[in-house]
């Protein structure tokens, strides 16, 4: 399979690697992660994304003896062909220098074996820090990590399994991996224009991570995308306790002129349309999503998609 993306998830034992991947990819809620034991060696998971793309996640157990193995005997096997390295450091780690040494030895191996790989550093368990100190504590670590990464470039995110920050970090990781993202984005823009939507969001259906968006009307809340991912994923998890095999969801919310519609788009994506234009009726939104379906299905297959054609939104 040409579209397999190898993603390394590394960091000290207890940093929270398995917890985050279980929440994003395996339908855990934050509370369930207390039951996780330490990861032995490497746990592989394959996550099918957008039809043809497969994410191959290497959750590398972080106990010292495993780490030594990754760096020396298994070096090639681990670090070769990686697209992304996600290194997790807990904000409450007692010996940050220790974490950073491990981090640097990973960078060194990566620079040799996968020089093109992207590097992401997640500062986890931010919820353990008081609200007003979070930014400060994060930026201290961020600048230290950036300095220690030179000449390589790294992107850092604060995360907590207890809030939406996790979705923000993982959305941007996924975003960087989707090959034809520009095509999705331009189609989404066109769709939003025709619909006279305020904004349109495209989700990967299993994770509800947002992989593309089109914003036509300024919105004051810069964190809304990860909030929305979190809200919808939570509902899905909770609802699947009641509805067995929950695989499709459709939500329609109307409040005065505000219309929010979430629906499945392709077998792998969901779409959310937000419209405040009083002249657009909910029925028209559904109709246009239906029309868009074929087009986006084609895009997923990486074929040359035909130009989109939509009906008049004002039905």
């Amino acid at each position: 399979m040409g579209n397999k993306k190898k993603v390394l998830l590394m960091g000290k034992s207890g940093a929270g690697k398995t917890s985050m991947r279980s929440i994003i990819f395996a339908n855990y809620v934050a509370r369930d992660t207390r039951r996780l034991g330490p990861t032995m060696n490497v746990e592989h998971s394959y996550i099918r994304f957008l039809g043809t793309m497969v994410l191959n996640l290497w959750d590398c157990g972080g106990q010292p003896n495993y780490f030594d193995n990754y760096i020396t005997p298994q070096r090639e096997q681990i670090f070769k062909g990686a697209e992304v390295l996600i290194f997790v450091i807990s904000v409450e780690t007692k010996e940050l220098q220790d974490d950073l040494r491990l981090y640097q030895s990973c960078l060194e191996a990566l620079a040799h074996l996968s020089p093109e790989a992207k590097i992401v550093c997640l500062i986890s368990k931010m919820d353990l820090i008081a609200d007003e100190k979070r930014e400060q504590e994060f930026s201290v670590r961020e600048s230290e990590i950036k300095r220690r990464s030179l000449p390589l470039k790294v992107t850092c995110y604060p995360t907590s399994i207890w809030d939406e920050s996790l979705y923000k970090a993982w959305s941007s990781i996924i975003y960087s991996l989707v090959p034809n993202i520009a095509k999705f984005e331009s189609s989404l823009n066109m769709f939003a224009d025709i619909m006279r939507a305020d904004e349109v969001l495209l989700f990967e259906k299993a994770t509800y991570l947002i992989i593309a968006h089109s914003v036509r009307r300024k919105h004051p809340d810069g964190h809304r995308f990860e909030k929305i991912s979190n809200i919808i994923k939570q509902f899905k998890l909770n609802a699947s306790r009641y509805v067995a095999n929950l695989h499709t969801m459709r939500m329609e919310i109307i409040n005065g002129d505000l219309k929010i519609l979430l629906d499945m788009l392709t077998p792998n994506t969901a779409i959310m349309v937000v419209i405040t234009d009083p002249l657009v009726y909910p029925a028209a939104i559904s109709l246009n999503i239906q029309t868009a379906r074929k087009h986006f299905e084609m895009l997923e297959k990486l074929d040359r998609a035909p130009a989109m054609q939509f009906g008049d939104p004002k039905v």
Partner: protein
Amino acid sequence: SQEPVSMAEQEAKPQIILMGLRRCGKSSIAQVVFNKITPNGTVLLESTTKIEFTDIETNTFLHYELVEIPGQMDIFESTVPMNHEGLFSNCDAVIYIIDCSDSYESALPYLYQIVTCAHKINPKIRFEVFIHKTDVLRQDGDKLAIRRSIYYKVTRDLQDSCLEAVKLHFYLTSIYDYSIFEALSSVVQKLIPELPTLENMLNLLNQKCRIEKSYLFDLHSKIYIATDSTPLDIAMYALVSDMIDTVLDLANIYDSGSDAKDANLSSTFELNNKSFLFLKKVNQYLALVVFMTGEDLQETSGLIEYNFYLFKKALENVFEIRTRKSKEKLL
């Protein structure tokens, strides 16, 4: 500020007293349900030192007062000047909270004292016992065993004092799941004189639209003030309550504040193309939320729309009757 309210006012407003030993979870319950504090956030709560009165005006049907007696204040201790008469004579219900993560037996003598004293003063008081913090118990079997044991001991003690006529209701609760909302819903509903009417209206609605379960929710507290007469189902309550959260959270992100209070919020969720949740606000506070399955959405949505409208009208009537009655009383 702790002065008791004037007699006239007190009579008009139903009162619920929260009691229990120290750290049993009284303040946590009040904060989680009425102030939207997260369950984890309650870890920081300080022990309460004085009686707290909270006025809860949740909706058009319900305006009551929650009174929290701190655990460190033993009302039968002679050092505590406490007018039992004043405390219990105007009270509708006592919620007694038992921490089941602790040795729950030590909570029983105080419960017994309260029941004996309060019942003597005001035989109309209802006693609701919350066996609380059940999240710390691993198995459902443990919960039931504790409940059985508490039930047995309490009834035996009451029988011994010839108080077997006093009925206690037991609930298993935790702030970490929906059980606390479900339990409070059951307690609070009994304060609404129109409850049977509301229940009938919901039964009728179910019949007309082939609905499986319907609730009349107070959107702010997520306490439901009425449901149809089919058996309670905590999983269904959870589903419906999750829908409310989702709808409000999403609407809040995009509502520019102004029309958030609009009485015309409505929503439809479709799960696996065969189960449906409908929500419609019926006035400033209340929303009708229903669940149905196995129906064709295209066919039923019109029917539902129409019957929701009728329900809303009927509800306005019920409320008008109440206002008229209370005015007549005043005259």
